[in-house]
């Protein structure tokens, strides 16, 4: 339990991406998010995803990136399986093959693949932003463009409390195990959760007192210990990361021929292999995950 850390944090490094101002990275992540929702075209999403992977290589964050992808992996698999039997798509649907009550639809495969591509795009760019940026830098630059300090602070504190609560949970768990509690199962929820939550609430109360004692919320302009400057290359990156998604988005919105949902046809064998391997993959992953958790 103690060794499991949340992978959503900065990977220390000194790559180009690490040295870049947080704003262009944030702009790019939001831009790609908007773009991914604007199109269903798997080819375009795939290209954007591939560019994202290149950035992952530049940022040297492959290890941390893959850890998050591993956590999200079952979601990717279920997306394909569920979408192909119940597409989030306007009817009519073209059936490919049926297994008893379930039918795999042509549109479903398309919908599943494109949604997967969307999610991959969004998570990749969001992770590039998060894993190459020091949280304080991010919040400092957000503050510079006018985000209220209190809101900023809430976000920072939440991020900082997570690892503390995690370690508290480990202590509580060992305290209750010392009283003979079984480490898993329904009976373990109350004895281990109550102390963690009560402790978290007490901690927050103390935090607010100590914050007020240190003049939190006083009027006037705040200064920051960390200074984030915008240099020429940051401006260039900002322009690029704004222009690239905006152009792409306008293109996919205006050019209707990029909607391949009716024209792209998956051969039946390929579809069946895809869906069944995803389903099997999910089951295998699920079994591994459950046995890992029950090991405690």
């Amino acid at each position, binding site marked *: 339990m103690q060794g499991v850390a949340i992978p959503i944090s900065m990977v220390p490094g000194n790559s180009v991406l690490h040295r870049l101002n947080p704003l262009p990275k944030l702009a790019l992540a939001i831009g790609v998010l908007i773009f991914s929702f604007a199109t269903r075209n798997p080819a375009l999403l795939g290209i954007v995803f591939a560019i994202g992977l290149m950035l992952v290589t530049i940022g040297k964050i492959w290890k941390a990136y893959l850890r998050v992808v591993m956590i999200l992996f079952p979601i990717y698999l279920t997306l394909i399986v569920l979408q192909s039997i119940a597409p989030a798509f306007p009817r009519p649907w073209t059936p490919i093959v049926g297994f008893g009550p379930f039918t795999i639809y042509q549109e479903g495969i398309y919908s599943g693949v494109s949604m997967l591509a969307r999610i991959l795009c969004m998570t990749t760019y969001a992770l590039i932003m998060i894993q190459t940026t020091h949280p304080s830098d991010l919040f400092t630059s957000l503050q510079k463009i006018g985000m209220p300090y209190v809101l900023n602070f809430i976000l920072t504190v939440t991020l900082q409390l997570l690892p503390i609560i995690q370690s508290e949970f480990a202590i509580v768990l060992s*305290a209750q195990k010392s009283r003979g509690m079984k480490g898993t199962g329904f009976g373990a929820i109350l004895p281990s*959760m109550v102390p963690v939550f009560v402790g978290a609430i007490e901690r927050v109360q103390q935090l607010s007192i100590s914050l007020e004692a240190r003049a939190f919320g006083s009027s006037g302009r705040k200064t920051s210990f960390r200074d984030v400057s915008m240099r020429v290359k940051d401006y260039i990156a900002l322009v690029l990361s704004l222009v690239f998604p905006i152009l792409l988005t306008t293109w996919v919105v205006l050019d209707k021929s990029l909607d391949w949902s009716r024209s792209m046809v998956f051969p039946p064998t390929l579809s069946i292999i895809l869906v069944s391997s995803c389903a099997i993959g999910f089951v295998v992953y699920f079994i591994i995950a459950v046995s890992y958790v029950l090991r405690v």
Partner: protein
Amino acid sequence: MANGLIRCENLWHIYKTGKVVALQDINLTIQAQEILGVIGQNGSGKTTLVKHFNGLLKPTSGRVIVGGVDTARKKVQELSSQVGYVFQNPNHQLFARTVEEELEFGPRNLKLSDEEVIERREKAIEFFNLNPYRKLHPYRLSFPVRKLVGMASIYTMQPAVFILDEPTTGQDHVTTRIVYRLIERLREDGFTVICVSHDMILLAEVVDRILVMRNARLIADATPREVFADLQLMHSTHITPPQITELSLRLRESTLQKVCLSVKEMVETIQDVMSGSRPTQSFNN
């Protein structure tokens, strides 16, 4: 038991994260009905050592044998009926709605019958004098009482060994005295008590054997009198003995021969010296 209740043989512990060597080659034997103190600076390995006694940590190499069984093959839950661990902060383990329910949690985990659970609960309430609080929510109690509830919740498991992590920290004088008394009573009832503590008065007056830890090593294992008299040891571990002991150590060269651990002892020693070497008239002034 001839081989001791708890035995560590060449115990090493290296934390997986960070590769910190927390224990280096610890060898010791703990007999039944001992009151043991474990001292050392923060980070010297005290807590790591005692966490091996109830299986919360497993040796990286070497062995820990509790009641004749190697802990490496036992789960914490299985060892909990033999070795009870009272955590420093009672808030980490109190969760039930009433003190009574809290005390029943341990024995229920041991799968005891209802009558036995209630019997043990009542025994614990009596032993720790918790009768006025039995229907209250543990979080409504004052910190010292909460700490007693924490100890009582382990007492209901009736383990042969009690591990108390900082039993007197953050408590007022009265409850500290109550805790000392309880520790002594536990021993009278046949339990073994291991205290991890920085409370020098507890160590001097209650404990009968002290383990001194420094930099992951066990550097001394002796009676409080021997430990506190060893000035070099005290200095190297940054431990200050109780003031009364310090006073008697400074007077040792000139007047007193004995190292005193408590005020009571000091009074007796001074009275002996004065009545022996001087006429009684000095008291009449």
